[in-house]
């Protein structure tokens, strides 16, 4: 977005006016995992006595980041690497530690992040077993050789993200034949397209249960195109209390990548659990709520 983006011109001061009595709004991005994490945060907050509601499905980072900035939502689960790249396009950090270190300074005034969890969910280049065999693919480096023949299925943002087409080109000199955009955040459409060979490579989150379920191959990323992505809360300082911070930090201390995969399976797998219920079950299980 340019300087003309209406989202950036939205008044940051508006945030204080929405809430009353310290009630927090937990937002989420437009894919299920984010929604689950939002429910987890909200559940943990409520359990700790901080009134919190959720505002799911806001959109991509470009949208929800502004929403946190202007106070439309107070907290949102985010991923450390991408968040850093969002606030600093030229960031070179790749490891979890470096990113965690660099991040706070780069955030604009009024925004901050809490402790990062161990749970990680990055974008990954995924192919079917058949494709992997056909082209002898193990890593993205292998992919680079046949790049011009393949179609990549990914969210439309992939075209502009540092790890997306620019990153592929920069790190692997891979320019795919075509980017087929999907709006389901690596969900069923992307999967269907991959399985039916409409796309040969898909951008699917590593925590997606369907990777295991369908025997998909996650291509290795030796050049760290996809940098570390720890789940962590991004928040607007205006309404955040210590009590709330403690509650969220408690979640981050416990949350693991496997937890994420299981939560995703509960919601998007055959069980079709409501994100809120899945979150509640997890919190209860971990003793963070009753």
């Amino acid at each position, binding site marked *: 977005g340019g300087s003309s983006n*209406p*989202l950036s*011109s*939205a*008044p940051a001061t*508006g945030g204080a006016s929405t809430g009353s009595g310290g009630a927090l709004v937990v*937002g989420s991005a*437009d*894919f*299920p995992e984010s*929604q689950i994490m939002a429910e987890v945060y909200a559940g943990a907050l409520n359990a700790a006595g901080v009134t919190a509601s959720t*505002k*799911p*499905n*806001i*959109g991509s980072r470009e*949208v*929800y980041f*502004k*929403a946190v900035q*202007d*106070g*439309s*939502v107070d907290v949102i689960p985010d991923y450390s690497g991408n968040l850093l790249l969002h606030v600093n396009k030229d960031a070179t950090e790749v490891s979890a530690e470096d990113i965690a270190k660099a991040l706070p300074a780069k955030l604009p005034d009024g925004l901050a992040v809490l402790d990062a969890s161990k749970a990680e969910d990055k974008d990954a280049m995924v192919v079917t077993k058949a494709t992997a065999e056909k082209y002898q693919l193990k890593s993205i480096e292998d992919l680079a050789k046949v790049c011009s023949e393949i179609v990549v299925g990914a969210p439309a943002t992939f075209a502009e993200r540092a790890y997306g087409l620019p990153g592929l080109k920069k790190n692997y000199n891979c320019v795919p034949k075509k980017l087929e955009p999907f*709006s*389901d*955040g690596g*969900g*069923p*459409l992307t*999967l269907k397209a991959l399985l039916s060979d409409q796309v040969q490579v898909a951008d699917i989150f590593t925590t997606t249960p369907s990777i295991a379920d369908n025997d998909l191959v996650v291509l290795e990323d030796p050049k760290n195109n996809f940098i570390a992505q720890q789940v962590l809360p991004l928040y607007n300082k205006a309404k955040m209390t210590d009590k709330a911070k403690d509650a969220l930090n408690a979640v981050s201390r416990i949350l693991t990548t496997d937890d994420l995969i299981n939560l995703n399976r509960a*919601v*998007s797998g055959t069980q*079709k659990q*409501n994100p*809120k*219920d899945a979150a509640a079950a997890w919190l209860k299980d971990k003793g963070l709520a009753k």
Partner: protein
Amino acid sequence: MDWFLANSGQVFTLAGQHLALAVLPMVFGLLISIPLAQVARQSKALRSVVVTASSLLYTIPSLALFIILPTIIGTRILDPLNVVVALTIYAVALLVRAALDAFDSVDEDLRQAAVAMGFKPVARFLQIDLPLSLPVMFAGLRVVSVSNISLVSVAALLGIGNLGMLFTSGLQRDFVTEVVVGIIAILILALLMDAVLVLLERLLTPWTRAGAAPGAVAARPHAGSGASPEKTGPAAAAMRLSDAQAGGGGA
């Protein structure tokens, strides 16, 4: 069904939000269109300006409008107000035309009779034009109601709470049940709104259901009586509305 039962609370919450987002624009639209139509009736030029503008407004995709609006009115991106304003704009686009037709549907002779009886303009508007335009106005409202309820779901793409969320979520989770529940819920909502409007109209226009006296027809000039014993098709003049609307760009 199981899913619906398990999540009925959520569905009802979304339905409530959905309804609010659909109804408010209708109310605002009505409050804006009636005076606007009354002004547009003053001259042919004004009328065609209003009519053309309303058809142009309608060619703007709603998603675009939802997003453009914050720049223009200074709201925040997630503010449901954007949806309300956008849908109000669509409602006005439809209702101005409906209101124009509604006022046109008031018998000119009757208006003249009112003038001849010594009604002043405001009294005439309130006591004659407004009540008598109700049937056509309600027809317009019913159209807007259905179209609004359907349009609101688009706002789910922006994360503004309503039944459309069931579609986005259903898509991401590959969950047909959720989508079907969403569709059915929206249909039911539309039907309920329609029923409410019909009921309201019945309450407000008792005279329209007073059956014509057997001899009342004789008041018409002899012309045409019995000339077409076949069924007389419903007047299709209303096509004008959509027709002229479509023609807005061509005018």
